[in-house]
């Protein structure tokens, strides 16, 4: 007993002891674990399969081994992505432990040609970038982005050691010297700079100018964002020069004249939205209140007398007391009920918007059957492009409405408006005849 309390008081004093030295080349978290075992232990837990009502289903219910197949759960996804790799294989997300593995395993990679650009968010890749860029990360990033995926994935250093071995790891978010948070993804550094410039701050550098609280979201914004591959160089680019709102990003793409793919059934040139957690969070009341991603997804936990950040990055619903109760003095049951009230309402509306979109696709298809040409379908196609962009922006976001409930419902309302108008335009072409 005495000793028990004595230990507490000891812990309270002890700080981190550096047993081993970690450097920019230490990609392997196992090495870091010797200095920071607590964080490492929780980090490893991201390998565990978890499930919540709408959260990523880690274990493949539908086919063993991999995460659950979204295309089976929501068949309308196959339809809206017709002709695109995402109609082939599109699964639930799961823990950081799987980031590299799942990327290699997806049929989007095994059966389609993908660039090295993909690696930016799925591996601890600074050593790779520095090696290819001969010390210059930016150069290396650009060259790797342009390579074919496998070539980048299998790069070896001069000693013949593979350069890409680890999923998201310590080096990606921490400065090995100070352990301070840092952002390392060239795509994010360029993207946030463009955004701040638009907002009036020239030459912004997050690693120099961001507050600690901002960094607690920026490290996540490195990857949980919408992106596209710019030009022949396939440079990973975050379309933020015009702002983070759905229509601001759309305007950016229209200015660029960018298109991800052509819809197989309608022939419309479409955009693909990917996991815009950072963009959507920025529109919600939590971000207004300065609540960071890490506050909810990596809450502090007490290990003895120490407070450490839970590196088992996961759904906060699995950890409501630490993730929420520090700010909301209500029961876990009530907190979960509040989240589900938001998510159930959101999910029903998402299904409604998906129906409107597939109805529009049907209408365009039968218009074409009835002989409508591209010229006739111009107006319908314009609506299709707007509707699909908005629908995907919401569907690809992973909080099922929670990060910004009103904003996401607003966007779904616009999906319905554009989809139904597209349907009107399509039906009119057949009437003209």
């Amino acid at each position: 007993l005495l000793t028990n309390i004595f230990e507490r008081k000891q812990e309270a004093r002890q700080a981190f002891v550096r047993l081993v030295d970690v450097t920019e080349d230490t990609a392997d978290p196992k090495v870091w674990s010797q200095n920071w075992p607590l964080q490492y232990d929780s980090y490893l837990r991201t390998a565990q399969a978890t499930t919540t009502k709408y959260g990523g289903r880690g274990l493949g219910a539908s086919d063993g081994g991999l995460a659950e197949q979204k295309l089976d759960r929501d068949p309308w996804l196959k339809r809206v992505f017709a002709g695109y790799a995402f109609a082939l294989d599109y699964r639930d997300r799961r823990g950081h432990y799987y980031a590299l593995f799942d990327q290699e395993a997806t049929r989007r990679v095994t059966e389609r040609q993908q660039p090295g650009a993909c690696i930016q968010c799925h591996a601890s890749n600074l050593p790779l970038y520095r090696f290819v860029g001969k010390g210059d990360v930016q150069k290396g990033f650009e060259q790797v982005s342009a390579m074919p995926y496998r070539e980048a994935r299998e790069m070896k250093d001069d000693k013949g050691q593979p350069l890409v071995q680890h999923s998201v790891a310590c080096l990606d978010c921490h400065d090995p010297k100070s352990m301070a948070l840092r952002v390392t993804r060239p795509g994010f550094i360029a993207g946030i700079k463009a955004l701040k410039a638009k907002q009036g701050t020239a030459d912004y550098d997050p690693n120099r100018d961001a507050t600690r609280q901002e960094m607690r979201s920026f490290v996540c914004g490195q990857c949980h964002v919408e992106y596209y591959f710019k030009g022949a160089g396939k440079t990973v680019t975050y379309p933020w020069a015009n702002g983070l709102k759905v229509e601001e990003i759309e305007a950016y793409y229209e200015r660029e004249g960018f298109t991800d793919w052509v819809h197989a059934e309608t022939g419309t040139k479409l955009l693909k939205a990917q996991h815009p957690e950072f963009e959507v969070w920025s529109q919600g009341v939590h971000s207004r209140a300065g609540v960071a991603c890490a506050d909810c997804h990596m809450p502090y936990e007490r290990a003895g007398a120490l407070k450490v950040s839970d590196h088992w990055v996961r759904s906060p619903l699995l950890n409501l007391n630490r993730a929420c109760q520090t700010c909301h003095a209500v029961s876990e049951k009530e907190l979960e009920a509040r989240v589900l009230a938001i998510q159930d309402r959101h999910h029903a509306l998402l299904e409604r918007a998906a129906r409107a979109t597939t109805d529009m696709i049907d209408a365009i298809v039968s218009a074409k059957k009835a002989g409508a040409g591209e010229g006739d379908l111009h107006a319908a196609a314009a609506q299709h492009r707007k509707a699909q962009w908005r629908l995907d922006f919401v569907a690809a976001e992973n909080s099922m409405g929670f990060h910004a409930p009103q904003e996401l419902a607003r966007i779904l309302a616009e999906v319905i408006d554009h989809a139904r108008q597209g349907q009107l335009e399509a039906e009119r072409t057949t009437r003209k005849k």
Partner: protein
Amino acid sequence: MLPAMTRRSLALLFAGLLGIPAGVGAFTFVYAKGFSYLSPDPRACVNCHVMNPQYDGWLKSGHRHTATCVECHLPHAGLQKWVAKAEHGFRHSAAFTLQNFKEPIEITQRDRELVRVNCVRCHEALVQAVADAPGRAHGELDCLHCHTSAGHGAGG
């Protein structure tokens, strides 16, 4: 030397028998400055680092000059006060020693009501017109519904 578990249960039994403040045995009691419970000094409460957040909050609150922990968290009628001190002392010390409590620490319903009584005790003059709605279910106005941060935050 007895195995840890038995030592604990013994100590708890011992404490239970004594039924005095702090509970987990005289040694621990002294060591953990369990005498906190006999002192109105806020610092006494936070010998247990687990309560640092509340202490820090109190330092920020408008009450730091006007009310100490016990003013809000212990009853102020003679005997009750000692009973509560013993009960708190035992429960907190035991929890702290065994490290088996839920975090963040959550006030119990009983203590929440106790605090509310203390709010009214001091602010009776101000709130006399609103504190109670006679003849109505749950007629007493719950101060904490609006003043949640009272004692622990900028809001009072």
